[in-house]
């Protein structure tokens, strides 16, 4: 059977570092990029005698995320120890949640070519991150950095509802959007603060029995996720086609070779010896706290996108970009209060504004001009007070200086000339100097018209009202 006769079945486990100031069980900073082992204390170093104390923000973030993903929040959830030896795991166990996680039974809606699809969330639980081992330290030594040890994580486990690599990517993107919107995670795959493992299996099409699954690790970009899943599907089909059996194992995505390779088999899998963490009482979340968190939930990316297309009449493409990040969407809405041609406003956002933000590396929060000023500029362009091109220059200047658009237009003399007499004088002058070109034009070489426009505009330093220039030229050339 060809690959097309097989149905892949995919589930994702997302690990999201929470944007709390301090670690989950001690007061150490969670800041990324500090000198190795700087952000540590006896608690996160796993010294003898230390005890964990829960950072309540972690539970708040977990509840917020659970509600956004339509989960049931457990009134009482239980901490467990997951036991294994590794140098970057200071206590020899990870404090996590096992059989009674804080959130269960949720869902996340994604877009597929066949339309909307609801992906079920099995569970969300809180846990502490491990440190980092550095194996290429030289001298045959390995080094351990425990700055990350104890940084709070949410693990979000989907049901195996995804059916191909594109759906998996779509799910992961949608998940990232939600977490970033909620302000609980920075969505950074490269730095590893947003990570994902994929469970992949294949079964013959029409079958209802899932095949044996493999867990894929080291998928630190959307591209790698797609490539690894596609490779793994092909590999598993190959194994089955050649009469073999897929064995349950953990496989690592090899970025350089573009293959997945076996990391450990089921037999080598750890027995984590989970048991309830005796140092931490069960976590109680009151109905009031859940209600309050539900009321405080922001509008989520998908709802916002749908509202942008509806309320502002924007194409889905525009709405998707504008709502990709909450601050941009908020800013758009602020500007929409001052300028009513929403599609045109969207064009300026997608074009000039985003280009400037990107080129200057400026965060939206540091913008120096107000939504009202942007509205004023766009109004000036519409009224022909300044050309669209000059308007871009004005925006650039507003961006850099924060000056009002009217001041910039005045200072730089960018006001558009819409005085027919003034333009006509220039047009006459240009035509007088270019008798030869007029001949060509009249002989049928119509593209020469562009030459005349260019000459007139140059003579007017770009300030001539383009519509009037066109109109007058056509008239004079006898069209």
């Amino acid at each position, binding site marked *: 059977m060809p690959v097309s006769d097989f149905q892949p079945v995919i589930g994702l486990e997302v690990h999201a570092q929470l944007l709390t100031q301090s670690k989950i069980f001690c007061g150490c900073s969670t800041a990324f990029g500090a000198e190795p082992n700087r952000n540590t204390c006896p608690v996160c170093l*796993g010294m003898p005698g230390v005890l964990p104390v829960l950072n309540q923000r972690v539970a708040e973030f977990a509840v917020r995320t659970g509600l956004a993903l339509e989960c049931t929040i457990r009134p009482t959830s239980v901490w467990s120890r997951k036991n294994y030896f590794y140098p970057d795991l200071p206590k020899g166990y990870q404090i996590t949640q096992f059989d009674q996680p804080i959130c269960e039974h949720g869902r996340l809606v994604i877009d597929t070519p066949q339309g909307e699809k609801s992906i079920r969330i099995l569970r969300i639980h809180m846990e502490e991150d491990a440190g980092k081992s550095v194996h290429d330290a030289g001298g045959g030594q390995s080094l351990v950095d425990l700055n990350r040890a104890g940084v709070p994580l949410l693990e979000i486990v989907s049901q195996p509802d995804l059916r191909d690599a594109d759906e998996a990517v779509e799910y992961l993107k949608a998940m990232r959007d939600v977490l970033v919107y909620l302000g609980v995670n920075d969505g950074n795959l490269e730095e590893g603060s947003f990570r994902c493992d994929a469970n992949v299996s294949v079964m013959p099409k029409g079958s209802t029995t899932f095949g044996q699954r493999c867990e894929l690790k080291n998928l630190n970009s959307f591209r790698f996720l797609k490539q690894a899943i596609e490779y793994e599907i092909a590999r598993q089909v190959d194994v089955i086609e050649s009469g073999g059996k897929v064995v349950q194992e953990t496989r690592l995505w090899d970025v350089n070779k573009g293959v997945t390779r076996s990391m450990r088999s089921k037999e080598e899998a750890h027995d984590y010896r989970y048991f309830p963490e005796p140092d931490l009482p069960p976590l109680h979340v009151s109905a009031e706290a859940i209600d309050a968190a539900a009321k405080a939930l922001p509008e989520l990316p998908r709802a916002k996108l749908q509202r942008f297309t509806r309320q502002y009449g924007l194409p889905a493409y525009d709405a998707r970009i504008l709502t990709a990040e909450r601050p941009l969407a908020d800013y758009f809405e602020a500007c929409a209060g001052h300028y009513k041609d929403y599609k045109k406003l969207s064009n300026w956002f997608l074009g000039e504004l985003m280009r400037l933000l990107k080129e200057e590396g400026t965060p939206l929060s540091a913008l120096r001009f107000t939504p009202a000023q942007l509205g004023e500029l766009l109004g000036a362009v519409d009224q022909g007070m300044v050309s669209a091109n000059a308007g871009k220059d004005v925006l650039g200047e507003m961006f850099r200086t924060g000056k009002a658009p009217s001041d910039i237009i005045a200072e730089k003399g960018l006001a558009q000339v819409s005085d027919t007499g003034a333009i006509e004088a220039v047009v006459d002058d240009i035509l007088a100097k270019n008798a030869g070109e007029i001949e060509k034009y009249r002989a049928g070489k119509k593209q020469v018209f562009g030459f005349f426009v260019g000459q007139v505009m140059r003579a007017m330093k770009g300030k001539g009202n383009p519509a009037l220039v066109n109109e007058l030229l056509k008239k004079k050339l006898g069209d």
Partner: protein
Amino acid sequence: MQLTDLTMLELAAKLAAGEASSEEATRASLARIQQVDPKVRAFLRVDEAGALAAARASDARRKSGSPASALDGVPLGLKDIFLTEGVETTAGSRILEGFVPPYDATVVRLLKEAGLPLVGKLNMDEFAMGSSNESSAFFPSHNPWDVARTPGGSSGGSAAAVAAREVFGALGTDTGGSIRQPAALTNTVGLKPTYGRVSRFGVIAFASSLDQPGPMTRTVADAAALLQVIARPDAQDATSADAPVPDYSADLEAGVRGLKLGVPREYFTEGMDPEVEAAVREALREYERLGATLVDVSLPHTKYALATYYLIAPAEASSNLARYDGVRFGLRAKDARSLRDVYALTREQGFGAEVKRRIMLGTFALSSGYYDAHYLRAQKVRTLIREDFTRAFQQVDALLSPTSPVPAFKLGEKVEDPLSMYLMDIYTLPCNLAGLPGLSVPCGFTKAGLPVGLQILGRPFDEAGLLRIARAYEREHDFFHRSAPL
């Protein structure tokens, strides 16, 4: 009369009256250690400089009229399970040899804030796993009442030091009887508070759901005074209790008239030494004479306590002791060539036989496929044991029993027979499983002159009740005046 013959409160009174200084008391303690510790071997480490500096600071406070607490200046010893900043702490294990903690346990901080000079670290069974102090990686401590015998364990060094009057009092920890059993074997008072009453932060963990620090003293009043210093909620221990801390000395002399005292029939069974039983029965009659009513009660699940304990405690220990991996502190095997070696050789060389035995027991109890049958079932039985006590305390104010089924046994006698050693704790460990407070008070001697202890168990957070009941009995006897024949 030497200064070291004084109880903590007697010394505190002399300090307050200006009849002695903390430095004199501390020097007397240090001299006594020098004199008798070669025989008793209670101390792993004496911090002479630290203790004297603290004593002089205490005297200065006293002179300026601002003592830090009622016990300011009274020298104390600490089981080597309490982390002391800058002073080596080993939990009686090779794997922590040379480990100098960067912080103080909460109780150590509280003692320092209250002005008590800390003279040194006391011997213990390795990681508190044992009932004789013989699993200490360094040497066994000896019972001051007969140096051929054990002072009990795991807080054996603490009990021996108090009984030998090397210190005025000490702190121990109790996971299955580790405060009460050595107290019983050394004619001292040992109090295991309600789980959560005293902070475990900075106390090296054996079994997290059972461990509890507590005072070990010569008198009931001293235990009350010392508990007063260390009992309080601690934000650094999530299992610490918010319950208000009463004045533990207020009702000490209130007597037992009108109280109902339960006698659990499951605690008077065969295997008990006849002389121990006789002493305890005599104590029961004494309570009747003092006006209490004895009530026969049953704690039917007692027979499962030992098995339950030896699943739960080792399971927690197997996880708690995973951090001793040679990576960040303590021992690292010198011949280790690979990561696997670092783990295997360090733990092989660093842990003693009893610790390894319990790590294996606990690892097995938690293993996939065995968890339900072992650990989970043990937790269910633990609930039944707790319910036994809840029912009993609907009828009675406290329970009376022997602390240990036998008096101090000879060093070496049970080392080869772990099971008989585990049986030493049958009367003490149900209390830990239920999280209740328990106290051992001296109740006489055998013909051979070995101390016997009476155990009093109470309702959660009724330490004051236990102390009052113990004091009523203590007042009628002179046991605590007797000094060990050293």
